[in-house]
């Protein structure tokens, strides 16, 4: 076995960080939903892909810059997320049942995507895909850099809001003990709607990033579920920076595995890491 060059290793680490940033962005909404609302929202992945397809459609037919589509997608998905939460609350869906109900929503969204865009592959061709920064022998493609920036930026911003603002404190209080928080005047229902909308908007942002860097097919919704769950559980439920750190750890480890060993071993990495952490710290979830 020949050892990879330092350039290859460094490029692979970058590739892993880029992938990890997207894992973190996808995991952020799921983690907040699971940790603070006690809802295992599988529809998060479907919403991400819906966002990706909408980005693709707006960019190819209306020639809107993919980043500008955020102006439409973020508020739209906020409303969708709040709507889903309202439905789950109305139906008094428990935590476990939320997984089943949102899985059903995922299947419906997948069917919708296939009906509108067919099962054929779609690739957003934008001017961003031609742009890349070169740092010595290393390449930093623009779409991946944007994903990294958004992933880090949104994770940090979410952490700051939760830690330093009154709304953040109210959200954390609701999550920790809803009845006591209510006694202090926190409107739990409004907080939950706000958080659900925010999580769905995060899915929309992740969708824009997916559209910029990946090919789209409705069936690909499911290929992300396993690794994102691993990120969320490794990062800790309800912790804004957790999925980003875990995502980068998984992404880099997968990339290095693909570089040094066989790419087919890469999927083992995320779940092996998860098993080790759960064995060592079983109270993590």
């Amino acid at each position: 076995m020949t050892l990879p060059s330092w350039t290859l290793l460094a490029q692979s680490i970058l590739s892993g960080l880029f992938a990890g940033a997207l894992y973190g962005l996808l995991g952020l909404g799921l983690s907040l939903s699971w940790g603070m609302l006690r809802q295992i929202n599988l529809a998060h992945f479907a919403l991400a892909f819906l966002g990706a397809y909408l980005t693709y459609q707006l960019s190819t037919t209306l020639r809107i810059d993919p980043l500008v589509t955020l102006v439409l997608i973020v508020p739209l998905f906020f409303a969708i997320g709040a709507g889903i939460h309202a439905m789950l609350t109305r139906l008094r869906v428990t935590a476990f049942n939320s997984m089943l109900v949102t899985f059903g929503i995922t299947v419906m969204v997948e069917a919708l995507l296939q009906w509108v865009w067919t099962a054929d592959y779609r690739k957003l061709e934008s001017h961003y895909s031609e742009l890349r920064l070169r740092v010595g022998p290393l390449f930093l493609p623009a779409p991946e850099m944007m994903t990294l920036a958004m992933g880090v930026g949104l994770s940090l911003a979410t952490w700051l809001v939760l830690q330093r603002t009154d709304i953040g404190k109210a959200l954390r209080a609701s999550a920790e003990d809803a009845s006591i928080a209510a006694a202090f005047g926190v409107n739990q229902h409004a907080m939950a709607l706000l958080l659900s909308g925010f999580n769905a908007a995060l899915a929309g942002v992740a969708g824009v990033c997916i559209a910029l860097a990946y090919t789209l097919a409705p069936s690909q919704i499911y290929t992300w579920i396993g690794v994102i769950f691993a990120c969320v559980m490794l990062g800790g439920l309800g912790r804004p920076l957790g999925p980003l750190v875990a995502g980068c750890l998984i992404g880099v480890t997968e990339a290095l595995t693909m570089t040094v060993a066989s790419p087919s071993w890469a999927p083992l990495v995320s779940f092996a890491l998860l098993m080790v952490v759960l064995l060592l710290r079983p109270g993590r979830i």
Partner: protein
Amino acid sequence: MSLDRRSFSVALGALGASTLLGSHATAQPAGAPIKVGGTLALTGPLSSVGMVHKLTGEIYVDELNKRGGLLGRPVEWVLKDDQSKPDLTRTLYEQLVNSDKVDLLIGPYGTSAILSAMGVAQRYQKTLVHHTFGVPPLAKYDQQFYAWALGPEPEKTVPAIVFDALAAGNKAPKTIAVVTSKFPSVHFISAGVREVARQRGIREVLFLEWDFGNRDFGPIAGRIKDADPDLIWGGALGLEANQILDALKKIDYAPRSSFWYAPAPGPMLKAPEANNALSLTIFEDHPPFTDNPVAKHFTEVFRERATQANLPTTTVEVQAAASYSAWQIIEAGVNGAKSLDNKAIAAWLRANQVDTIQGRLRFNGPGNFGDDLSRVKQVQDGKWLVVWPREWAAPGAKLR
């Protein structure tokens, strides 16, 4: 044994002339319809290709009925949606045989689904003609017949054809990187490539495998760039070829030569980084394939109806050609045996040859397989053009 282009064109011309003329002279079919049963991936992840097969079948059955059907009777295609699921395929073929009581069977799309259908066909001793089976050694049933002419040992013949093409174009590789999905029909060929390369003295500088559904091709591209082979052999399915080429472009690496086994043909034409990429085909919509009237007519009708149906691909290539050939085999088998008896049809097919739009097929080899009629095609300025063998090359096209 392979059929030369001249004989193929003459035979198809004669068939085509009689076919096209016959459409005006043949009496309308009458009586109870002959039911041909099958499934396709009309929904699910494989549906984009499934729809190509559906359209091809509809075109063929329409025209067959205009020509008098089979044995003077109209043909009805009983088509069910297997939703891209091999387990559902098995159930649906059971239904086709037991509930719908079809007379004949035609295979579904894809190796896994065909294997499921084959099991059912074998149980009920039905002859099964299939069009997209990628692993010939797995086809053990003696009444199954292929329409995609890969031959019994494509893992040896396909790489040989590709290496011959490169040698003839003065691009014989000294080094090769074999990068492959672990999807069975693709992986099987890639394993053969390694052996054929070794026999021809081509040094393997890289071998990588990934699971089907892999998201990140960055590290794979990095390893390819590090290895810097003369030829990348990509055992890539669907859009994986585009994903790897895109990942290579991002790190500023352009392959000297690349071959992709089963790429999604449309996206390869649209990607600038895929220019000069090679792949495999049995038919392309250009001369000499379209020199015969049957093929030319089919390509025109397909283009028209695919445009109306808003299909992403409106030209006839491998999938549509294999599908059309399957129907031609069924028609030839029934007419040859002058019967709907499945065993008689199978016996006739094994003893005879069938002229199809991809060439003359024989079924008397191991596992009922015949010749490998693969040709090498190349993306040249936004078009797939056959470049090898020379007698099948598009006019003026040469390997770049």
